[in-house]
Every structure is written in C-alpha cells, then in structure tokens.
C-alpha cells in the first residue's frame, strides 16, 4: 500500500517542495545531508529563531551553509529565484511567513528546473502553494528507546502517492533509517 520511501526521498530534483510542522528544520537538514554540496538558507532578517551550527553539525558541515538575511519576503523570493537559477548550490531553503501566490510558486519552480537545484520552502501549516511538487508534514515523535524519531507525512505529491513514514537519524553515519510503523 505504501510506496517505498526510496521513491519519495530525496524528493525530485530540479523542483521545489514544501515542508511544514515542528520537525521542518530537521527535514531540511536531513535533505541537505542527503543531497550534499552547498546549501543556501534564505530568511527574513527579523526572525528570532537562530540556527545553531553546533546542532546541525550532526547533519552537515556548517562550512557548506550560507545564509542570506533579507528585509522582506519579496527579497526572499527574488534571492531564491536567482540562487536556484545559478546552478551554484544544490539546495536552497527558504522560510516563508506569508503564503505565496501561484505566480511566485511557478517562477521558483521554473528557476529550479533551469538551475537543476532543489528548492525547499519551510511554511506555516496550511499556507502551501499549489505550484510545488510535493509537500511534507514533519513532526518529532516520542519513543521510549530513541530520541531522534520523526514522523514524516507526505501530504501532497504531484507524481505519486501519499504516505506516512517513521524515520530516525543516525548521527554517526549521517543517514536516515526508516522504521516500521508497527512499533506503536
């Protein structure tokens, strides 16, 4: 019934995707670790949440991450489009605070296609754009034995079926492990 996790992760390259939920940052870094290469993180400068390199060094080398602080969402989108098109980075992550329209979403999609880069937007719950290829909802799950268990739901997929997976992150080997949902 479920499509294999390997078919949906990493999500299709040269496309943009969305992720929401409290585990979205973990998803973004896990994807960066899976794709490798340079990563660009575009955000608005006023955000109070600060990424902690000592924390995400379990996922990727912080030297491969570049951050862009922009003054508003318009600049976020412009910078993202330029970066996606440049073919210089493997992954562009943006944090959005307001929903984007179909036009903007489509423009990012085309830029990602031209630059062969993956785009990932971290969105508030329920503010997705229709132009994206897939949308994920990620949330950490409590487990008695393990403290990295996550529940990843694929809630929109333009080219496949939806699904729910429980994954954990192995810090030593820097890779994801899918665990059986029957563990509940």
């Amino acid at each position, binding site marked *: 019934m479920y499509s294999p996790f390997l078919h949906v992760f990493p999500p299709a390259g040269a496309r943009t995707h969305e992720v929401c939920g409290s585990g979205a940052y973990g998803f973004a870094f896990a994807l960066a670790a899976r794709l490798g290469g340079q990563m660009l993180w575009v955000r608005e400068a006023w955000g109070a949440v*600060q*990424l902690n390199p000592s924390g995400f*060094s379990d996922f990727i080398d*912080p030297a491969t991450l570049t951050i*862009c602080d922009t003054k508003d969402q318009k600049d976020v989108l412009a910078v993202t489009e330029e970066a996606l098109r440049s073919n210089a980075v493997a992954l562009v992550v943006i944090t959005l605070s307001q929903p984007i329209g179909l036009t903007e979403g489509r423009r990012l999609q085309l830029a990602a296609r031209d630059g062969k880069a993956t785009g990932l937007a971290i969105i508030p719950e329920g503010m997705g754009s229709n132009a994206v290829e897939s949308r994920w909802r990620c949330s*950490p799950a409590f487990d008695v034995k393990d403290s990295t268990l996550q529940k990843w739901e694929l809630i929109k997929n333009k080219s496949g079926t939806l699904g729910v997976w429980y994954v954990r992150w192995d810090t030593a080997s820097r890779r994801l492990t899918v665990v059986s949902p029957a563990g509940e």
Partner: protein
Amino acid sequence: MSDGIQRRVVSLWFPQLASDRVLRQHLIDAPFVLTLKQKNANRIYCLNGDATRKGLHRGMSYADARAFCPSLQSAPADPAQDERFLHVLRRWAMRYCPWVGLEGCDGLVLNITGSAHLWGGEPAMITDMRRRLAHAGVSVRIGVGDTRGAGWAMAHYGEGIAPARDMLGTLAPLPVAALRLSDDMSVALQRLGLRTIGDLASAARAPLTRRFGPGLLLRLDQALGHQSEEITPLADPPHYGVRMTLPEPIGLLSDVMAGTERLLVQLCAKLKAQEMGARMLCVILRRVDQDEQQVELRLARPLRDAKRILPLFERGLSEAEAGFGIDQLRLEATQVESLPAQQISHVSGRASDKLDDLISRLGTRIGLENIQRFLPADSHIPERSFIIAPAAYSDPQSGWSSANPRPLCLFPPEPIAGTGPHPPNRFRWRRMSLTMGRATGPERIAPEWWLSDENWRTGLRDYWRVETKQGRRLWLFYTPQNPGWFVQGEFA
C-alpha cells in the same frame, strides 16, 4: 658630471612639520607642543614658534615644560599622520618639477634642473614656494645649491640660494654640522679646531679619513659636487581607472555592456600587471546633459577576470537611466586587494567560483554583508559558540565539535512555570500543554564572568534535554541561583 646644464637642487626643510599640521586644523595662538611617549616619559616631539620663544626645546620632558610655561597647550603626536602629510607636500611640490624625493622625515628635495626658468628664475620660484606654504600655514626653510648636500646645508644653516658652480665659496663659513654629520662627529671636529666647512676643506684629507672613516669626506665631497648623490623620486601609486569617450551618445543596455566590457578588459590587464584583484568596482556613466549615473559593484572575493565580472554588472547597468544618451564611460576599481598569481593544479582547484559569483550577484540586491556564514568561536556559552560573519570577507572554517547534543535552533529564553531542580512533569509552552516523557541532564554551564552579558545575569544554568510525550524535544534550563525554568531551543 654633465657639461651642459648645471644641476640645481632645492631643499625644503619643515622645522615644525608636526605642530604645523595640527595647528592648520584649529589655530591656537599660544605656546603649543606635541608630546610623544619616549623612554617612559612624555617628551616634547614638536613645538611652535611661541613655545620656542618661551625657552622650550625638543626632547624636553613635558612635565618640565609645563613648569616653565603654565599656559602651554599640548596634543599627542601622531608620526604616521605626519608622514602622510609629508607625502601630501611631496605631491604638491611636483608642481615645480617632476623630480621630488623625501629628505628624512621632515624635508623634501627637488631637482629643479631645467625647470626654474618656467617660474622666472630661482628667486621667483623660491618666493612662490614661500608664499604658498605661508598661506597653507606651514613654516619652511629653503636652500638652493648645486648638490643635494649643499641644498640641505643651505636650508638648515644658511637659508638662501648658493650661486651656481661656487659651492665651496658659499658653504665655507657654515659649521661642519651642515654636512649632515652625526652629533658625535661634529663635536669631535670642533675639538680639533675644524669649526667650519672651509676649515675642513683645507685640512689634509688622509689623516681625517684615518680618524673619522670615509663617511666624513664623502659627505664633504657630496656637498661640493665631487661625488654624485641620487635623488630618488617616489613612484606614484598605480591608478586603477579607465575611461572611454564616445563620439555619439548611446542608450541601449547592450551598447553600454559592450563599452563596459572593453573597459573591463583594459582594467583587468592593469590589475594583472600589478597582481591585484578588484573588490569594489564603480562605473560612472556621463550623459549628454552632464548628469552622472553611478553603478557600484562589490565582489565576494578579489577578481580580475573580465568574463566573470561583466555579467555581475548587468543588473546595476540595467537600472541606470540613460536619458538622452551616454557619451562617456568611466570604470574604476575603488577597492583593490592583492591577488597573487597561483599555480593551477588538479589538487587544490577552487570549486566555489560559482558560489562566489552568486554571492556577488545577490550582494547587489540585498547587500554583501547580509550574506553570511557560521564560523566556530571559542566559547562554551551556546549562543556564543559561533559567530556569524559576512561570507564575502571570511573563509569557511571547520572545527565544529560538541560533547553534548545541541539543539538545531535557538531562540531567546522563554519562561515556563516550574519549581525545583527537576524538570516539571507537565508544563505549558507556547499555549501547548506538554507532558514530560524523558529528561536527560543536567549539564551545568557557568556564565563567562569576564564578559558582562545581560542574558546571563541570572547566574548558573542547568540544561536539560526534555523529550515530551507529544513529540517536541526541547532544551530547557533551570537557574539554581535565581530559581526559574526557561525554554531556549528545540532539537530535531
């Protein structure tokens, strides 16, 4: 020596260069000195005419000087600025002749051979120098002679013009110190009874050389013109600017880009010759209505590759307003950094060229300093364990390590209800009611007392990693010296 034109040298001595420089900015009509800390005491470095008349002198301790002269005003000396001022004066002196060198740290030497007649002769030239320097508020003493040594002697001890081809006749009455000798040597010569240059010139040479070494007679010969002495003019710093004037005004973006490309190729050749790379570039477009448009470009790293720089200009140039047309293009590298030629090898090829270009391009939109990267910092305080530096001005560093797991993101501490040193079993955070599933800790982190940080006023912190039954994994801390519970971060 040449037979044709007689060599003539002007020596300018600025006896109060340092104090004149300060007094030019705000005039003080009182005894004034500049002090410099030498040998563990504040000593007079330079003083103005009023102070000299009060009996003060160079090298005197500042405390003594104030006792002599209670109304004394002072300022700290800045030799680096004085040197820069001397270079300004050197540049100014190029108006008299093209061959200007520095003489020590308070003088200039000009080879005016063949250029004095342009000013109506030497006396008129000297008068012009005096007038202009007096207007600028710089006191000067000027000497003219056939040689550098004679010019120096006239400036320091005679002041005036020594007639051509008769150096010995003019210099003979001057003291031996006018030969640029050390103090010890001139005192020793006076003890021998050789007080003036004339005495020295008529004395036997062999015993003098035996006693004082070849330096003494070398100085004498240089002053009298028997030995040549060079004047070394300083090279002007290279100018990284090129321009192009067009017979017909242009307005299309493609035309402007083509013009810029031609200029860039010239500029890059210049940069390459000097082994420099441009960090900041500026294109100035002059329009037919005399208006000027400036397009600036800041680069993420020094570059001198026209092919890579040109596309970065596209965005800026497309925003420029051409009006009735542009008839002059100027391109200048306003900030350059050294970029030595590097061996190309298959081992250490730079793969991040594309990223650097991307950073430059994004920098034109959001500002180069807003594109940043994380660098490790040496601190155990979580929010200070990294610094955020502009990516264009820093290199990526490795060396990230943490003994204990750290959260993915940090935020300013948010208080929650809780008592006691153990994490609360149930608590509310961000309007969510959470139940503790597992807590790992405590990890005690003490504030860095050598830095005063507002956020760490509450003292020690005991950090706990709390996994809630609802899923969220939070980083809580308890402050035992000032009881309270806070949430500061969230794990993946």
